């Protein structure tokens, strides 16, 4: 048990430290553009990927750094991709918000709200037909529940009997508007409209998310339908790197900060182990950034390649 808790802490911390450094990179120009960070939500990808098979395909959103890393994408290449380098992921084509790494069954981020749901249905359709035993999972935000494509995919998955897992990361906001202003009912309530199972879980506990995802995976297999996991969490940063968060009620960040999944994960550990782990990840991340910075710039003459097969 202790080992799992150390792993959770380490994997969440890696995501946190990489993202904190990426935020600095955006600010000082090492990353061109913006980034949507998952600070405060790390327990969800870490917990879920613990329960998924390593080959289970995963689709995420623009807020997908945690998912890429939790699927095992190497930090150096991941950071290089966000920095617009010639990484082994997408060579700078994807960037922070639209990167993928099929080698790690990370089928990609998606910068269209809800846009990854239909493709996940399709991935699941193929894996079911090919009997690979793999169950695709897709992460979306709470605000995405109001996009038509999410609705269509959940119904179609249900009636055609296609098993996949939808993880709704309910982080309290859609951009700058509180989720509850936008969505008539919570995601888990909507599952009934599709005759699919839903599991609600504390999204700030990696072990709880892992357990929920494990159950969801089993249910997907036994019901041969989509299964929903609604993970309750809090976005501890801005919607994106440049967000001044003026819309936040006073004191909210302090209050939410007390629920920080990293603090909680660390509190479960022996302090010496925790500190050693911390130092190890700090060093690992520093090294990854140093090495990512060495990756070459994309080759200009490659810009037009891969639009078509040939």
């Amino acid at each position: 048990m202790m080992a799992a808790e150390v792993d959770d802490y380490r994997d969440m911390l890696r995501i946190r430290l990489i993202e904190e450094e990426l935020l600095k990179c955006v600010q000082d120009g090492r990353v061109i553009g913006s980034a949507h960070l998952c600070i405060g939500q790390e327990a969800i990808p870490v917990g879920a990927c613990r329960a998924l098979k390593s080959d289970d395909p995963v689709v995420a959103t623009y807020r997908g750094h945690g998912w890429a890393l939790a699927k095992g994408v190497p930090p150096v290449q991941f950071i290089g991709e966000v920095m617009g380098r010639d990484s082994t992921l997408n060579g700078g084509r994807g960037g922070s918000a639209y990167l993928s790494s099929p080698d790690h069954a990370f089928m990609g981020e998606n910068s269209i709200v809800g846009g990854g749901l239909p493709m996940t249905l399709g991935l699941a359709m193929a894996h079911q037909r090919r009997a690979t035993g793999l169950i695709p999972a897709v992460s979306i935000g709470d605000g995405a529940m109001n996009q038509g494509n999410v609705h269509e995919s959940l119904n179609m998955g249900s009636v055609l009997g296609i098993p996949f897992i939808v993880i709704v990361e309910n982080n309290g906001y859609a951009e700058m508007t509180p989720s509850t202003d936008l969505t008539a009912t919570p995601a888990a309530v909507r599952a009934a409209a599709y005759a699919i199972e839903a599991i609600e879980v504390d999204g700030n506990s990696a072990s709880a998310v892992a357990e929920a995802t494990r159950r969801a995976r089993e249910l997907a297999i036994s019901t041969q339908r989509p299964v929903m996991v609604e993970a309750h969490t809090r976005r501890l940063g801005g919607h994106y790197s440049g967000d001044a968060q003026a819309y936040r009620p006073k004191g909210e960040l302090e209050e939410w900060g007390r629920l920080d999944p990293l603090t909680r994960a660390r509190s479960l550990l022996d302090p010496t182990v925790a500190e050693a782990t911390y130092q190890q990840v700090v060093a690992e991340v520093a090294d990854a950034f140093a090495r990512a910075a060495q990756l070459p710039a994309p080759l200009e003459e490659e810009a037009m390649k891969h639009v078509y097969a040939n």
Partner: protein
Amino acid sequence: MSTPTDAEAITYIRAINLALDDALAADDSVIVFGEDVGIPNGPFGASKGLRAAYGDRVFDTPISESAMIGAALGSSMAGLRPVVEVMYADFLLVAMDQIVNQVANTRYVSRGRLTAPMVIRTQQGSTPGSCAQHSQSLEALFAHIPGLRVAVPSTPQDAYSVLRGAISSDDPVMVFESRRLYPSKGHVRRDADARIGVADVVRQGSAVTVVTWGTSRPLCEEAVDSLALQGYECELIDLRWISPWDTETVLASAARTGRLVVVHEAVRNAGFGAEVVSTVAESLGGQLQACRRVGTLASPIPSSPVLSAQLLPSVDTITRAILDTIGEK
């Protein structure tokens, strides 16, 4: 299913059916789906008999075009070769994000690590009485999107060959069939050239180059044939594919004739005809002595055939456009 001999003329819709059948037989990874495509044999009969022959590789979906396109995308990313039917091209619009923002980007953004070898079959064009939401010719919207391939076949042979070529392609292909031409007949050779992007030179001539595709081809044939009787020899080219399109054949012809008419049923304004004219104008400069586009006038299509006839291209408007270019010096 009984298959036609090469000597037998078959309809356009039967050619589609045959292409789907042959593709399903040739490759286990092909699946075919859409609204009423499976058990009911397809709204226009394109999938007739296929459910019976191939079981659940041919199936029905809810009326959810975004999810349908996504289902094709995801399954193509994971090793299948889906052919999804969207009943009318007008309905592509409810799934436009999936086509443009998802399907088209797959290969490029992943640097070729993810691919989407899928086909979207649809049919388009106006038939008498069809309303504004069931009459549009929308190929230009998709030709503008890098990452997509777009075909607009007009004969049974091309319907067959284009679809086979599309299903074999490693790129996502959109096939715009013609509902109006579904009953038209022709011979189909199953071993005909299925290369992507190759035009068909329908008539040879030196007076003017006429370029067309899809539903407008029969109108152009009629116009060109009657002009031939008057001594004007027009070169008639059916592009078949507009992404990629056969610039070489068109440029060579236009360089010879110095005159160009492009005809399509889509709205003339900002239609793909503009791309053809521009490409030729850029290449030939002042050597392009005259050019015209014929397309639907800038209006939604009214249901009444009396009104729609005023808007759609006709043998008459095509003939006049051709004569116009010949008259000009």
